[in-house]
């Protein structure tokens, strides 16, 4: 199969993720869209590793996964905390960064 | 250990000593600081005696690797020019400590911090003049700002914080331009025979630069120095800083730190970029002449005595800059001697003005009046310092000012002629405050001002003695300066203009 097709899928996934981040308000959904983008990047890395016949891309993909896992832990914790204190998971409500 | 490095370390050791004295023993702190600075001054004088004036290369040299991957060394050494400036720095520091015995009071922090800052500053001053590695020079050049910033902002008066920030931003701006030029030099040197920051090796690099590159790098250095010196129109930080700082800090600021600017013009601008220097000479002379006249007019119009002294300095720095770029031995020697003499005459003016202000609790000239009758010794000290500032023959500044004028006249008569008008303006800007503050009837409220006490007399005495002695016998300094000046002129490919007629015909 033409490996470039994987890249098209990755591009599609990334676009969906990016649009999701910008358009959706719910923090959980935004979070999942970020994961989508990360995985799109992972897919690209693996694909290029395949195309070039080297291992670096795959190794990097593992790194990304680890980082993504950590991020999920921290991120979900923050979201849950915010939800507990504000009864809302909308990220537009949490605009305290302004001050 | 190398004598020069030792000299530079001494004040740091003193600072260490001061830092272990308990905070409440203020007298001990002051004594320790004074003893250290005196020791440094004595050591420097010893060095002066051991200096071989006939030898134009660097002496007391020490080179040690610092950051080898960039070719950066700890490299120090002195020639006639830097020796004179180091002498100036270390002679003025103990006088400043003694004269400003109570300056640390009323500051934001303790006396201990004040003296540590002064001592650290002294190390920096020695380092900046002694460095023969451009990167090391830059480090000292910038690091020097830190103690001065805290001295102005922490111990000054009036809008001290604003003045300190203004001073810092101005200097940093120039420093960054210089850093860019230094990186440029580094790139060029690494392409041509290995990365180095050694001033002697770098002075060969102009052969590998296009004229545009050279001009740009020159400007980076020159603007930094023109801010330091200060040359019109980059001068506005000086009056604010001088008016807000304590008198002692002002002495170090105007007397020594600003000299880094004019020193740098000779040491770096001229020797690293000889062709660019020639290109820019006419413009720089114009700015120098404007500084002379402009500073004088502003001094005439000044109402605050500290600002007045700052403006006179702008005028004097114009003379120094003019002498440097006139490219004659007389101009150069005159400019170097002027740096030394200006240090002393400004020190005298500032110290006496400081005492006047601390007694009267005002720095407005019009608030004084008739001091000659109330406080004769103080009035006389101010008068002699003022006479030195207006370059009265027989006092030290005259020798240097006249050398600058004569040296400039032989190559650039128009600039010298305009600058000479400055001597009439000088008479005005000194005699107006003399008349207002010292002469006339005693202004009410001044009848009981105290004259100088013994400590103050001991502080001002040597300064006035140097001013008078060097006026009659400048040879001890000129002998050191002349070979260095002749060397610079020669290495720039210049020779003094011959008399246009007479002997040759």
């Amino acid at each position, binding site marked *: 199969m033409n490996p470039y097709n994987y890249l098209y899928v990755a591009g599609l996934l990334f676009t969906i993720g990016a649009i999701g981040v910008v358009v959706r308000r719910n923090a959980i959904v935004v979070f999942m869209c970020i994961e989508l983008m990360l995985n799109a990047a992972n897919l690209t890395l693996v694909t290029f590793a395949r195309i070039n016949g080297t291992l670096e891309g795959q190794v990097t993909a593992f790194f990304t996964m680890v980082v993504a896992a950590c991020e999920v832990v921290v991120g979900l914790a923050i979201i849950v905390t915010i939800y507990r204190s504000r009864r809302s998971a909308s990220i537009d409500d949490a605009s305290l960064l302004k001050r | 250990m190398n004598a020069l490095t030792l000299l530079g370390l001494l004040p740091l050791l003193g600072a260490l000593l001061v830092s272990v004295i308990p905070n409440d023993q203020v007298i001990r702190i002051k004594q320790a600081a004074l003893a250290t600075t005196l020791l440094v001054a004595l050591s420097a004088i010893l060095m002066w005696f051991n200096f071989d004036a006939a030898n134009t290369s660097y002496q007391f040299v020490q080179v040690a690797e610092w950051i080898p991957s960039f070719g950066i060394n700890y490299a120090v050494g002195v020639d006639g020019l830097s020796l004179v400036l180091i002498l100036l720095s270390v002679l003025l520091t103990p006088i400043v400590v003694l004269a400003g015995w109570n300056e640390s009071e009323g500051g934001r922090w303790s006396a201990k911090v004040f003296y540590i800052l002064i001592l650290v500053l002294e190390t920096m001053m020695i380092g900046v003049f002694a460095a023969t590695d451009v990167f090391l020079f830059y480090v000292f050049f910038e690091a020097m700002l830190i103690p001065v910033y805290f001295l102005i902002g922490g111990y000054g008066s009036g809008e001290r914080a604003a003045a300190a920030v203004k001073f810092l931003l101005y200097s940093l701006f120039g420093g960054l331009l210089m850093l860019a030029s230094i990186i440029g030099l580094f790139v060029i040197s690494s392409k041509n025979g290995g990365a180095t920051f050694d001033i002697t090796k770098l002075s060969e690099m102009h052969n590998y630069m296009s004229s545009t590159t050279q001009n740009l790098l020159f400007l980076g250095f020159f603007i930094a120095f023109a801010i330091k010196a200060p040359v019109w129109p980059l001068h506005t930080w000086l009056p604010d800083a001088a008016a807000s700082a304590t008198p002692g800090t002002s002495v170090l600021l105007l007397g020594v730190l600003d000299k880094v600017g004019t020193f740098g013009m000779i040491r770096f601008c001229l020797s690293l970029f000889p062709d660019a220097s020639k290109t820019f000479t006419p413009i720089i002379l114009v700015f120098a002449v404007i500084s002379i006249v402009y500073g004088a007019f502003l001094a005439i119009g000044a109402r605050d005595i500290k600002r007045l002294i700052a403006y006179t300095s702008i005028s004097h720095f114009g003379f120094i800059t003019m002498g440097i770029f006139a490219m004659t*031995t007389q101009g150069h020697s005159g400019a170097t001697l002027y740096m030394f003499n200006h240090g002393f005459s400004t020190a005298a003016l500032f110290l006496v003005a400081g005492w006047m202000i601390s007694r009267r609790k005002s720095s407005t000239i019009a608030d004084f009046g008739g001091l000659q009758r109330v406080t004769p010794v103080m009035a006389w000290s101010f008068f002699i310092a003022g006479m030195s500032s207006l370059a009265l023959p027989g006092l030290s500044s005259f020798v240097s000012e006249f050398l600058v004028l004569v040296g400039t006249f032989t190559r650039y008569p128009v600039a010298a002629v305009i600058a000479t008008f400055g001597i*009439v303006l000088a*008479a005005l800007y000194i*005699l107006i405050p003399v008349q207002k503050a*010292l002469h006339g009837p005693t202004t009410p409220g001044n009848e009981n001002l105290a004259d100088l006490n013994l400590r103050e007399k001991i502080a001002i005495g040597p300064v006035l003695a140097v001013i008078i002695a060097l006026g*009659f016998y400048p040879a001890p300094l000129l002998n050191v300066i002349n070979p260095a000046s002749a060397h610079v002129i020669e290495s720039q490919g210049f020779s003094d203009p011959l*008399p*246009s007629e007479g*002997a040759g015909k």
Partner: protein
Amino acid sequence: MVTSNSLVYLIALPLLGATILLLAGRRADKWGHILATLMSASSFAVGLYQLSAMLGRSTEERAISQKLFSWINVASFQVDAGLLLDQLSICFVLLITGVGTLIHVYSISYMAHDENRRRFFAYLNLFVAAMLLLVLGDSYLNLYVGWEGVGLASYLLIGFWNQKPAYATASKKAFVMNRIGDMGLSFAIMIAFATLGTVSFVGVKEASHNASQTALTAIGIMLLVAATGKSAQFPLQAWLGDAMAGPTPVSALIHAATMVTAGVYLIVRSNFIFDAAPTAQLLVVIVGAITLLFGALVGTAKDDIKKALAASTMSQIGYMVLGAGLGPAGYAFAIMHLLTHGFFKAGMFLGAGSVMHGMNDTVDMRKYGALRKFMPITFVTFGLGYLAIIGVPPFAGFYSKDLIIETAFNAGGAKGIILGGAALLGAAITAFYMSRVMILTFTSPQRWDEDAHPHESPILMWLPMAILAIGSVTSGFLFARGDALAHWLQPVFGEHGAEHSEEHLFSPIVVSAMALVAVAIGVAIAVIKYQLSEVAATAPENVSIFTRIARKDLLQDSFNEAVFMRPGQALTRVLVKGDDVVIDGAVRGIGRTALGAGSALRTSQTGFARSYAALILIGAIALIAGIWVVTQ
């Protein structure tokens, strides 16, 4: 040249005196005046010794020099601290120390009640030292040191009573106007170094033989500027009248006998330059002629006895400058007039001081009158000086002034007639205003206030006056007899010195006769106007416009104020304002711009995470698009 190592004592003694008195402070109050007088007198003694030694040598070896040390030595600019004593400088040395010592003696009594007498004597000694340096320096730069040194002493002494703001202003004015002249001297030295490569008298003299006329003319004109400043010549004359704020002995010593004649010394000393630069020489005579009339006219309108004498000094120095500008024929006569003037003018100033001393320090001559009876010695000594200045034979001024008038007439052509006519007219006016001073003070009916008790001054004051009066009587005859002074000075002026103009417009007898007629007319007018008619005790107000202008010193101050002072002050104000608004404003503007930009951009930070994300996305897309476009 013969070298000596005793010249330095001439200067060192008074300098030592000044230093001791200034450093010792109040401790020296008791003996300060005596020490200062002794120092001045011993300097005079050294001068006499040098004169006798000089007389003992042959003409060629009379000039002696002393090199003290190398002063400024930078590459080709070499100036030694060196002294030169020749026939010209010995005249000055003796005048300065001689008259100086007499005035020291006079001041002991005159200043007896001033609590700062010690300081006064310190300044006097400082002045004597500086003035000696001026005339003994062997190069223009050494002369410059003395030149500004006497300026400093003059500043200190004019402002001796500087608690009065007007006096403080007068001293400042004198210093600043002198500085303008000093600038001329600076230029002269710079031009000399740039063109001739040396600034010593000997070196410049040698080099001037080969130098172009342009260079020499430039140097000459600049030297003339210097001379006009120091000698209160047109157009830098305005300070002298105000300088009378100083104590009267100062006016006698500095502003009559010695310092103000330094300009004449400078011109005569630079004879080799002026001889080779006719244009500069012409300017010298023009300045001299204008000033001698200017001073004389001002003198006619002054009621202040010291200001009248000051105007007279200005006028008499005009004669000297005129003489010096007439070239080799006139140098010796200029110096002769300078020396005789030193005697009679110093004597008259001391006389004026004596009158003021007896009249509660009143200086208004309209409040004097009939003092002849109360102050006989002052009257006689002043009168002898008066006869000398108006040029009655055989008193000193007759010889010296007559010779200048004669030389002026002999300058040739229209120039000679104009200059001679001006000098003659000046002589007539001099006779008028000096007679006016004499009559108003001594012979007219008394007009003093009730509380005045005129009395003769003590011996310490009248003795110097008497000695100077003897000089006023005899010096002219002694100098002129057999051209004694001209022969003595001739080696200084080189071979030109002996050259006398062959063509005489008028024979000496005719000139003398004309001068005497002019003097007689002047005296007669004064007698009719003041002796034979009533004099008001206050100056009349309804006088002609000319009198009013003359009272205001021919508007010299109004002119300076309108042309220099006020525009200068306006410029200063504009620059001070401009520095704050424009230059510092620009700097502050940069700061404000940064702050403003910050607060403007701050509003874009909404705090909405999604808008940040959108911005990041847009940025990334823009970046990729940019790269794509560039690499395409």
